[in-house]
């Protein structure tokens, strides 16, 4: 049977506002599955051209797949969202790059012809499911010296990355963090972010936290607009004495969910669905687990090579800000300035937060908006570092570009 690889497009993406994990967080009394269900429903409301019956798969990511993130979330979330029972679903996990992997896995199946349209997204309620909940690492990791002991502690891996790039100082990391907050505040002021947020009703029964009863979340909770270098200078470095990584130059512990529609371009055009980004290539790469923040570099190398592109062809970057140092290492590797205007134009996870398995789709949603505004840009990428030493990169083409779809 002859096969044709089909073009895959990012149709639309939405997310819940992100919250701070913990008893004082906005989502403390909200279930994780409800977050992703509401994101899926909003996505369907926004895209009435997509007949729910025609959705071929629901791929939902979560790092800790137990409790309200368990029970094969892709399937249960589909039922809870009111999708027809005929629509299947599954769960997926690659820690921080889980939602990104949900997208690429779905996209691969679309390209192959197995699916026409897929819901791909992720959720992480780190308040209900703290990092490392229920894990049982094999003792051989340590006894056989397979990984350094610091590999399981993300903050320590970030300190290790500072060691690898001695020129990336705490000062540079803090400056980067301040800019992230500034850019995020500006993006909010200009309404760039809110357009893709799903309002979430939240209940609070604890008077010590704030007003009780039902409320509505319409904005990200973790943001700290107005953060200054002085604010950050005095913060503790919890992962190493006299270290460089602080709560201020890293993403926090967060709750949130994302969802996107991935489809074949043909299907999208046929059903009048928006074509916001066209998938060019994707790649994953492994690195030493104790410097997992290095992961985006080899992953990007691979993705560029597969696409036949070079880094100069990429004019918009959405890099997950798990840690400032990991973004800076990437930029330093490619000789890009710390404050390059093409990088994280709306700010990043340092401001918005990083609910692990959901973040990949946030990067894509933001890149898609930037593509819309900047038709002169042809290629962009989304990249993330992943625990246990991995990187993940997806390269996208801007369909609004005059040469889009043609040869490079």
């Amino acid at each position, binding site marked *: 049977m002859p096969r044709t690889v089909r073009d895959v497009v990012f149709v639309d993406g939405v997310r819940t506002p992100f919250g701070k994990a913990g008893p004082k967080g906005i989502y403390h009394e909200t279930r994780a599955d409800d977050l992703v269900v509401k994101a899926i429903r909003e996505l369907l409301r926004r895209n009435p051209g997509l007949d729910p019956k025609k959705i071929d798969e629901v791929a939902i990511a979560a790092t800790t797949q137990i409790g309200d993130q368990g029970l094969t979330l892709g399937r249960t979330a589909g039922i809870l969202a009111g999708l027809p029972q005929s629509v299947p679903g599954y769960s997926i996990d690659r820690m921080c790059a889980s939602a990104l992997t949900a997208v690429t896995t779905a996209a691969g199946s679309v390209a192959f012809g197995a699916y026409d349209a897929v819901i791909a997204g992720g959720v992480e309620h780190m308040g209900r499911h703290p990092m490392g909940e229920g894990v049982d690492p094999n003792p051989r990791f340590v006894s056989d010296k397979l990984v350094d002991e610091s590999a399981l502690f993300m903050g320590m891996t970030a300190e290790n990355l500072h060691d690898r790039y001695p020129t990336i100082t705490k000062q540079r990391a803090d400056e980067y963090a301040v800019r992230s907050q500034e850019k995020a505040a500006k993006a909010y002021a200009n309404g760039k972010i809110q357009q893709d947020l799903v309002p979430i009703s939240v209940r609070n029964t604890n008077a010590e936290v704030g007003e009780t*009863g*039902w409320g*509505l979340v319409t904005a990200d909770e973790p943001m700290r607009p107005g953060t200054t270098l002085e604010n950050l200078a005095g913060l503790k470095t919890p992962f190493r004495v006299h270290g460089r990584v602080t709560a201020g130059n890293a993403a926090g512990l967060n709750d949130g969910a994302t969802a996107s529609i991935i489809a074949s371009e043909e299907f999208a055009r046929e059903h009048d669905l928006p074509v916001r980004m066209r998938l060019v290539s994707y790649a994953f790469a492994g690195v030493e687990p104790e410097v997992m923040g290095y992961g985006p570099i080899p992953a990007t190398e691979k993705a560029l090579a597969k696409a036949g592109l070079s880094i100069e062809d990429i004019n918009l970057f959405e890099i997950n800000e798990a840690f400032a140092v990991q973004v800076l290492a990437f930029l330093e590797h490619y000789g890009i300035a710390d404050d390059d205007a093409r990088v994280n134009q709306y700010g990043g996870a340092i401001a918005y937060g990083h609910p692990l398995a959901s973040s990949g789709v946030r990067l894509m949603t933001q890149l898609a908006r930037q593509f819309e505004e900047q038709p002169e840009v042809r290629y962009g990428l989304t990249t993330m570092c992943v625990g246990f030493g991995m990187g993940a990169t997806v390269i996208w083409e801007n369909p609004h570009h005059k040469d889009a779809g043609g040869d490079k």
Partner: protein
Amino acid sequence: MSTTELLKGAAELFPDEVVTSAHVRHLDLPFNAGRFALITLDNGFDHTKPTTFGPASLANLNAAIDQVEKEAAAGEIIGVGVTGKPFIFAVGADLKGVELLKEHKDALAIGKGGHEVFKRLSALAVPTFAYYNGAAMGGGVEVGLHCSYRTVSASLPAFSLPEVFLGLVPGWGGCALLPNLIGADKAVSVIIENSLNQNKQLKGVQVYELGIADALFEGADFLEQSLIWTASVLKGEIVVDRPVIDRGEAWDQAVAKGRFIADSKVHGAAPAAYRALDIIAAAKNGDLQQGFDAEDKALADLIMGGELRAGIYAFNLVQKRGKRPAGAPDKSLARPVTKVGVVGAGLMASQLALLFLRRLEVPVVLTDIDQERVDKGVGYVHAEIDKLLGKGRINQDKANRLKALVSGVLDKAEGFSDADFIIEAVFEEIGVKQQVFAEVEAVAPAHAILATNTSSLSVTEMASKLKNPERVVGFHFFNPVAILPLLEIVRGEATDDAALATAFGVAKKLKKTAVLVKDAPAFVVNRILTRFMGEIQNVIDEGTPVAVAEKAVEPLGLPMSPLVLLELVGPAIGLHVSETLNRAFPDRFTVSPNLAAVVKAGKRGFYVYDSGKPELDPEVAALLRQGDVVLSEEQVRARVLDAVAQEIGLMLDEGVVAEAQDVDLCLITGAGWPFHLGGITPYLDREGVSQRVNGKPFLAPGVASVPA
């Protein structure tokens, strides 16, 4: 008196109130629409304890409104919403508080207190919104009616104004506001028709279709979508367009329809529906305050009247006593029932087989004396399953499962050798039943329960010839089996606790209201009904015209007249039961020669319906031999009620049931006697009949009456 003082006074009368909080929380509406205050009604428990309003709860809501009123006046908020805790909006006034009220002025304060608080929601400087997220009843519905706009969840399972059902009127604005919102006709349906139709509940979609709610949203993100909708309304992007209400003749017709419904259901025997209709009629002029005042008055009068107390009594009987039967042994003694045998394959037996099959979902095997009967019984069950399938009540898989579970055999040994529960529904003749049980005992496992659906024979006698009489129990259903909830569970002299516990366990799975009854002739319902009918027959036989005798008992609000009931039961069966009871108690139970003549003539009833209305069948009229003592309706009623009061008194003395409450529970759930009268004993007490006949009331003051 200020609202605060009013409610404080009322709260002192009700120290055990489960208090509902009214949490005020502020939020930013989507689309930068502005700052909004959302009030959440929440009693702090999960959905199994729904949110209610007592005086302290109303005071909390009042304080919340104080707060938002100031904020609205100061321009700090652009709107106010009200919603509930998960799955529950609010289910209205706390009935326990109502039961405690002893004085008219306190009752008036409750009505007025609710009004004073709720109506502030329509007088704020900003629009108000109710978000019916879950169950909403009575005062819960009414809180929302005072708001400017309402949304409802498509998942909402139950929405009603059940006051008339209980013996009240929707008295916190419901009677005045609802017809002015959706028109008198629909309001009468909700307030009168649904209430009197066994308290029928509306679903979310119907609440929207009736126009009570302005928007309908699915449950999954109901509150989010409601708030987004709110933002659009406040920004003027959505304009709510409600149909104009017909305030002309249609209004009067609706009220007339309501009176017709009330008459056909309660026959004037309960005042609540009529009071509600009076207020609806007056609401035609749109003067809400006048309506609210009328509600206060009606509420106070009804709270201080016996009918409401009887209604609450009935509600508690069905909801509480019906679920925890008095005298039932510890349920841990019950044996598992994994297969059911039914002796007989006639209509009753087939209906029982269907019920066991549907509720227990275990193999059910029917036996009878020839293959034709067995096939017919199984065929009936299959046909009923197909009907359920056709109506979409069950799917094909379930239909397949149920059909595979039912079977019929001629050989009892083959059918019953592994059955745990075997019920007989064969001919009502003690010798036949003893024979059947002997055969069953010979083949059934030692642990199997042997149940009889006898309506009038002695369970003890039936068991007496068995090796193990301790496992025989009476299991008396009421026709129609699928509809009437009552199951009289009869303890024979030898019946042991395990058999009884198993019977109660099965009853619960069958979703029946089980009442423990002593092995006495005709048990409870048939004994009272037969004495009642017997007395009607007596006065007819003595010379009172049939029509007068029938009309005399209308104030009891029975579901049908005595002779129509006799037709339903079948004159032959009625005669048979009266003969049985006549043998047991010849001094009180007579056998009517006229009834015997009607049965002998093969008549199925007293009436013909050729004209569309029941008229005495001329052939029956020709059979009747009446005396010359003509009584008035009052005289007939007195005789009948005296007889019933005497019989119940004797039954309690004999220990047929534990308490008068069980008699009422039986009559309500097994004979459809009126809920709003609390069955019969509250009525007999209130009318002074109990005192006259037995020298004392059946129930202590306060049980189903205003406390002393």
